[in-house]
């Protein structure tokens, strides 16, 4: 169907919303990438078979949705309308769910989530700590809609913001509303979105472009992917509104090729949006026309930088160029171009629907709205969270995240991806917003949040990020290409016990030069992981350089595995598992590690049932 005008849309919208509500029970199964990796497709298959066998209606009863966020406990199944929350569901559990929960309304105790702190079984999604401290304005619909069905999106008020814009707002009013909301770029830099749009709007040009930056290359971050996979129409709607405001005729969604499911769902969504009249010529019968194409990135972190991304679409290597001219003046093919991150676009329909005034009440003075983080690493509740700006890091990690697993001690949280910094325990009460994180020597970035515990070595973490940055530097400007490589070489030396007096000062000096002299944000922020770890974990650097010790026991050149003969029971497990035959011993004789042969893979350390193997 194609809507001829706005009135027709309004009638259909009411109809779809009614249909959506009419269904009594609904089984929502997460089919996001995380849950798929845990086997959710098999669970879905089992549901389909079981529902058919019971002669029930698959279409009505089962919802294959995008990411629900709580990846740690996948595959996730939520039974609507009560939102009974089952986690780690296996195909074998499916017949029981259909018979007991759907058929009789009984809750299956065994599948409920157990709170790691209180040990209490929790029945409803809204009562799970992971969810109940979140404000899921952007991410919330993911669990309710089938991302391949435009009807679902429309039923839950989708495309109503667009209709509002088309029926009674002009482009200035839209830009004003976005400016007033205080929305800032969610890709990391935090530039005010309204201002960015205005700059592009002001340019005189027959052709203008808008781009959705979905080149999510930060390791440990998958928020953008989950939005593209789970609610693609919300991104499209944001872009269509943006195009209307800016006066763009064409949009691109730049998405990583490594995200095949996101690409698939976007393709379907774009097709549907064209069919229903939200994209193409004369959108909803108005004289506004706009269309969107997908462009698949080929795996280069630096393409997340605006000008690198543009070069990539133009068929070149993704090397950033000096600004000005800014993309708003001379962007894709030399035409004015506005680029926003996936999450920024997803915020647009929300702001238009609920109003800038409502939106600007969420968050802090300078950072408005909510932010989606991927909370990962050494934390109990790994997953995607949406929280209001201004929440503290402690609330995120110890509240929503449920603290550190295995009773270990928290050490640091890394925000902002490879260009971000590591924040220590003493700063955990800092409210999360753009400025506060910057002051701590980190950045908001795109939303990766990686938690580390006492077993992680901060010098090794700095080395890890540097090795990533060395590989991903495009090589165009010398300070970044050579400077970051030298940083890496020095830190690598330190982790091998070859650090020297004066290395820390040298790292700091070099970092300042790289920050000052690099061409783009990649180089300007590349020293952050080194500087923030030196700032907060100075002693750990000292231990490596002066004492030649790695206190966390990570840097393999700085310790040996030894077997404590008092604790060794000569069970032989370590000897059998050693891949290089470096362990000698026989029955009833305490075993010994031959240091010359040992590669320090750590297998013996992990398999010893008596904790007899020590790092010394």
């Amino acid at each position, binding site marked *: 169907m194609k809507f001829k005008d706005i009135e027709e849309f309004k009638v259909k919208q009411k109809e779809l919303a009614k249909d959506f509500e009419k269904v009594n029970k609904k089984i929502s199964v997460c089919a996001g*990438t*995380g849950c798929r*990796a*845990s086997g959710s497709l098999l669970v879905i298959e089992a549901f389909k078979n079981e529902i058919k066998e019971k002669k029930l209606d698959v279409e009505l009863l089962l919802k294959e949705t995008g990411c629900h966020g709580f*990846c*740690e406990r*996948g595959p996730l199944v939520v039974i609507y309308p009560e939102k009974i929350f089952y986690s780690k569901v296996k195909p074998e559990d499916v017949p029981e769910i259909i018979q007991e929960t759907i058929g009789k309304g009984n809750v299956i105790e065994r599948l409920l989530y157990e709170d790691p702190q209180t040990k209490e079984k929790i029945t409803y999604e809204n009562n799970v700590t992971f969810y109940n401290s979140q404000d899921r304005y952007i991410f919330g619909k993911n669990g309710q809609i089938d991302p391949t069905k435009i009807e679902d999106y429309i039923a839950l008020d989708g495309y109503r913001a667009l209709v509002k814009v088309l029926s009674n707002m002009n482009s200035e009013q839209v830009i004003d509303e976005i400016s007033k909301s205080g929305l800032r770029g969610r890709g990391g830099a935090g530039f005010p979105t309204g201002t960015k749009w205005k700059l592009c709007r002001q340019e005189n040009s027959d052709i203008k472009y808008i781009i959705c930056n979905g080149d999510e*290359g*930060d*390791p*440990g*971050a*998958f928020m953008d*992917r989950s939005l593209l996979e789970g609610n693609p129409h919300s991104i499209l709607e944001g872009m269509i509104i943006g195009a209307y405001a800016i006066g763009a005729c064409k949009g691109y969604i730049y998405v990583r*090729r*490594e*995200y095949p499911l996101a690409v698939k769902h976007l393709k379907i969504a774009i097709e549907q949006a064209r069919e229903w009249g939200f994209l193409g010529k004369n959108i909803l019968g108005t004289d506004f026309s706009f269309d969107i194409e997908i*462009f*698949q*990135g*080929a*795996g*280069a*972190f630096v393409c997340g930088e605006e000008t690198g991304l543009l070069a*990539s*679409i*133009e*068929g*070149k*290597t*993704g090397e950033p160029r000096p600004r000005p001219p800014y993309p708003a003046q001379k962007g894709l093919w030399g035409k004015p171009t506005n680029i926003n991150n996936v999450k920024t676009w997803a915020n647009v329909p929300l702001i238009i629907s609920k109003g800038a005034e409502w939106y600007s009440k969420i968050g802090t003075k300078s950072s408005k709205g909510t932010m989606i983080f*991927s909370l*990962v*690493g*050494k934390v109990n509740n*790994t*997953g995607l969270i949406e929280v209001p700006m201004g929440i503290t890091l402690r609330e995120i990690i110890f509240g929503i995240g449920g603290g550190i697993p295995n009773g270990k001690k928290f050490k640091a949280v*890394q925000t902002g*991806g490879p260009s971000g910094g590591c924040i220590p325990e003493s700063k955990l009460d800092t409210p999360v917003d753009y400025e506060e994180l910057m002051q701590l020597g980190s950045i908001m970035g795109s939303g*990766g949040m*990686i938690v*580390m515990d006492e077993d*992680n070595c901060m010098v090794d*973490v700095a080395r*890890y*990020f540097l090795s*990533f940055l060395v590989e991903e530097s*495009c090589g165009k400007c010398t300070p970044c290409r050579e400077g970051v490589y030298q940083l890496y070489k020095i830190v690598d030396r330190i982790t091998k016990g070859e650090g020297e007096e004066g290395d820390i000062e040298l790292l700091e000096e070099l970092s300042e030069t790289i920050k000052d002299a690099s061409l783009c944000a990649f180089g300007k922020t590349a020293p952050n992981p080194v500087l923030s770890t030196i700032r907060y974990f100075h002693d750990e650097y000292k231990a490596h350089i002066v004492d030649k010790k790695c206190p966390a026991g990570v840097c393999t050149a700085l310790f040996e595995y030894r077997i404590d003969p008092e604790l060794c029971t000569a069970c032989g497990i370590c000897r059998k*598992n050693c*891949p*290089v035959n470096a362990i000698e011993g026989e029955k009833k004789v305490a075993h010994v590690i031959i240091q010359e042969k040992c*590669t320090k*893979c*750590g*297998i013996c350390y*992990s*398999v010893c049932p008596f904790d007899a193997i020590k790092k010394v």
Partner: protein
Amino acid sequence: MKNSEVISEIDDILEQYPKGPESLLPVLEDIQERFNYLSEDALKTVSEKLQIPLNQVYSVSTFYNVFSLEPKGKYIVQVCMGTACHVRGAPAVLEEAERFLKIKRGKTSKDKKYTLETVNCVGACALGPIMIVNGKYHGHMVANNVKKILKEYK
């Protein structure tokens, strides 16, 4: 596969895209997906048909991580080296995979059976450390079970 067949398949791919620089990445991506690598002939054909200098085609194919100029093995073993996997012990998993397969990261075994790659996050951090073999995810990896899993891929 004969050279002429390869060229004709590449022609088929090229036909789906307009002539011009904006088609370069999509075309190379499709060829990479189809053949698992970009051969010299492929690069030359693309350069000719899209009328882009060969040096630009070459520089693009060596810039982006997706492309490979060498044919890959029957089994592509990827160890995720994203931050979340790194802090949970991915380096030990990678080293064990290198030892077991007797190839370094980024390399293909002589018998063309295995290619060992590292990837910068597959976004399934809750399962980290992760090893992926031909698209199948193996989560919560420890060095000790690398051998057991890889032995299944003969």
